[in-house]
């Protein structure tokens, strides 16, 4: 019950505040939210779009949970995602052309995961060995990663067939197979599997327990003989690998190509969802579903109401704000992971080791 209030309260308040904003902008909030609901959830075609959107989000949520559980603030998810997307979109058309599809998908998934993981190595190394705050380094690496991705698309990966810079296009029928009778690609199943595996790993295995100890008490981790530097590198890399895998799934399942300056900005809204779920992997599934509904339905509703697409980001921002307020008032002295508490602790961490 308390959990429902804790999760539902901020969402409800954000929707209310969004409603006030809509009224102020001269729009009808009821029809706006009705549009979101009908398009994102109730319309058979719309709900498929929602489920398709959930695939990369769930994979990225898995990556965030692994990092946050170890108290590693991987802020650079978008950079890892976009660089991996550029690699997959750049190499995809060629690989799919020369290899059997299944093999090509496997290799491309691996490429995405590897690129995503590789983009965490420097922040992870600096944190593990010199205690450099990863919030700063992984954010800086996002800027580099986004621009490096664009550079690749405008340079070596650029399609010769168009004026707008983008990669070659994988033909629609060569994309990831769909679940029969739907437009939902198998990437969603992979994402659900991934999140269940993360859940199991975190709750049942010795590796998950080690990560949790590293996250909640680095000094205890050193005392009991965990190799904290190695664990930091591993969990950071795993987190990046999931970001890269999400990119591979999105490119191979939905787009088939990547154009320059494309940035869906999946990463930051997920922070809110992952902490609303208290870093519980299974708990994050319905929240990602909810976010899928408002982001797909919101796209449609915003257009109908003649509002910019980014209006939904305002609502997500308000969810974050109300969540932080609710955390502050409801859970003083509560030691479970919260966004506000975790961020405070992470920022307070000096540059010292541990």
């Amino acid at each position, binding site marked *: 019950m308390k959990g429902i209030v804790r999760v539902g309260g901020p969402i409800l308040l954000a929707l209310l505040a969004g409603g006030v904003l809509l009224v102020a902008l001269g729009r009808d909030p009821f029809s706006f939210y009705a549009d979101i609901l009908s398009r994102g959830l109730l319309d058979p075609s719309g709900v498929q779009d929602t489920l398709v959107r959930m695939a990369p989000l769930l994979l990225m949520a898995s990556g965030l949970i692994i990092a946050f559980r170890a108290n590693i603030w991987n802020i650079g998810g978008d950079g890892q995602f976009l660089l991996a997307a550029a690699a997959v979109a750049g190499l995809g058309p060629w690989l799919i052309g020369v290899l059997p599809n299944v093999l090509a998908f496997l290799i491309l998934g691996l490429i995405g995961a590897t690129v995503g993981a590789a983009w965490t190595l420097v922040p992870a190394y600096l944190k593990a060995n010199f205690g450099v705050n990863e919030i700063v380094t992984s954010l800086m690496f996002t800027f580099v990663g986004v621009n490096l991705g664009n550079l690749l698309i405008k340079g070596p990966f650029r399609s010769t067939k168009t004026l707008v810079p983008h990669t070659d296009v994988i033909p629609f029928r060569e994309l990831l197979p769909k679940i029969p009778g739907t437009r939902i690609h198998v990437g969603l199943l992979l994402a659900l599997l991934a999140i269940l595996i993360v859940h199991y790993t975190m709750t049942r*295995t*010795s590796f998950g*327990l080690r990560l*949790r100890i590293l996250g*909640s*008490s680095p000094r205890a981790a050193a*005392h*009991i*003989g965990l190799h904290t530097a190695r664990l930091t590198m591993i969990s950071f890399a795993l987190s990046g690998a999931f970001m890269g895998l999400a990119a591979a799934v999105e490119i191979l399942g939905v787009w088939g190509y990547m154009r320059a300056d494309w940035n869906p900005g999946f990463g930051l809204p997920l922070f809110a969802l992952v902490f609303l779920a208290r870093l519980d992997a299974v708990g994050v599934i319905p929240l990602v579903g909810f976010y899928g509904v408002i982001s797909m339905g919101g796209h449609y509703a915003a257009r109908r109401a003649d509002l910019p697409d980014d209006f939904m980001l305002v609502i997500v921002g308000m969810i974050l704000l109300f969540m932080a307020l609710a955390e502050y008032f409801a859970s003083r002295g509560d*030691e479970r992971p919260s966004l506000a508490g975790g961020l405070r602790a992470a920022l307070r961490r000096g540059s010292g080791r541990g």
Partner: protein
Amino acid sequence: MTPDATRTVTRSLTPAVGSALEVRGITKAFPGVVANDAVSIAFHRGEVHCVLGENGAGKSTLLHILAGMQRPDSGSILVGGERVSLDSPHAAIALGIGAVYQHPWSIPALTVLENMMLGEGKGLRLDPKSAAEALARFGSMLGVEFDPGAEIGRLALGRRQQMEIAKALWSGSTVLMLDEPTAMLTPQGAEELARVLVRLARRGLAIVFVTHKLHEALEVGDRITVLRRGRVTGAWGPDEIAAAGRETMRRRIVEAMFGGGVAPEVQIGRSAHPGLRGRRADAHDRPALELDRLCVEPRRGEVGVRDVTLTVWPGEIVGVAGVDGNGQRELAEAVAGQRSVSSGEIRVGGICVTGDDVSGRMRRGLRYVTDDRIGEGTVPSLSVALNLILKRIGEKPYWRHGRADEKLIEENARELVERFDIRTPGVGARCGTLSGGNLQKVVLARELSSGPAVVVYSKPTHGLDARTTMTVRDRITALAEEGAASLLISSDLDEILDLSHRIAVIFGGRLTGIVDNVPGAEREVGDLMVGGSAR
């Protein structure tokens, strides 16, 4: 209105002999534990009021409530006879309730004066002049002279605490609460503090002195209240204390602290000198732990370890005596494998372990009972059951192919909870909800239950109440009798004299001498502790 009526009204508002601060029926429960159960106490101006109790008796909770850091579930708080609500530390300070905690809050890199000014002043401007005045004024009130320009990190802890008291007085405290104020002090520092507190009480302040040390309460307490398991189990005013006499009071307090049953020996008696008793020697014995010219590089503010050579035999307890900060922590961590050595060798059972990590040394039978039970010894957010097996994560039979066998882990925990008498609401409870004494039992149970050959103890009874102290010391002795070699690092000389066969003294990171624990050894050890040389 007649003059008489006026007087009556005035008196009821500010009673001449009434309380400065009073709690009535305060109850505060945490998951699984009732920390304060209908506690009623009145604190009076002009008195040092000692609140005594074992660890986990509810003293800290009460103090946190009075400092506005926690809210009681029920009950009321009265300041000067009027009901108040203390919903923030600011509210408490505004009502004249100041607190000084066991660990200093002052910032080491700042000077005394700068620390005085922290958080003071309206707006952005600092006011060094009035802070300096306050420092001088309250310094003379405390009977202490402060050097305003001294960096506070360089001062003794006692002086640092006095600065924090001065600061509390400056913010207008009429009630001054101190939480275990002597825990970090030298004996001289503690005596000085006692003098300061009595002085302040005579000037009309109400002093609340929270402690678990009986003799402190007997020495400075004008009024004594005993808490046990969250309840007030004894309360005596100045007249009763004077009438009863010291011995009677001691007996009454012990009864209140430990219950009506068999009261444990509060003064832990000195047994026959263990050095005379000797250990059971065996001609085929091989040294259990050897340190050979061990050196550890100091980090900032440390002395490191220099050229330490020491042998501990099976069944032997070697005490390492010394004033805190002379390399004890560095030595313990180097032996445990938590810190790398710069030169020298460590051998366990004749095998060199210098290159092994913590788990490698664990497998050789080395155990380390850390003195930092909250910071590194346990993980507060994990269950008691997991904490009891923290150093064996991933090992059979508790984990198979990386997967936890929760049933087995819980079974192990239940057995240890029983064997080591750990008071916890359940093995699934978060370790963070346990009191200090029970945390120490968790650490001991974990380290001592799995076939230890060599145990390094770091201040094993620091901050524990008398009863837990006794059980811990009994366990150390019993384990040695079973054949484990023990390195007992402690700043409590009595503890070392009680338990050790031999005593090594550490000073400035070096062993300045190793003496057999025979009658008269304490004098020699005392000389060595302050840097003298062995004869």
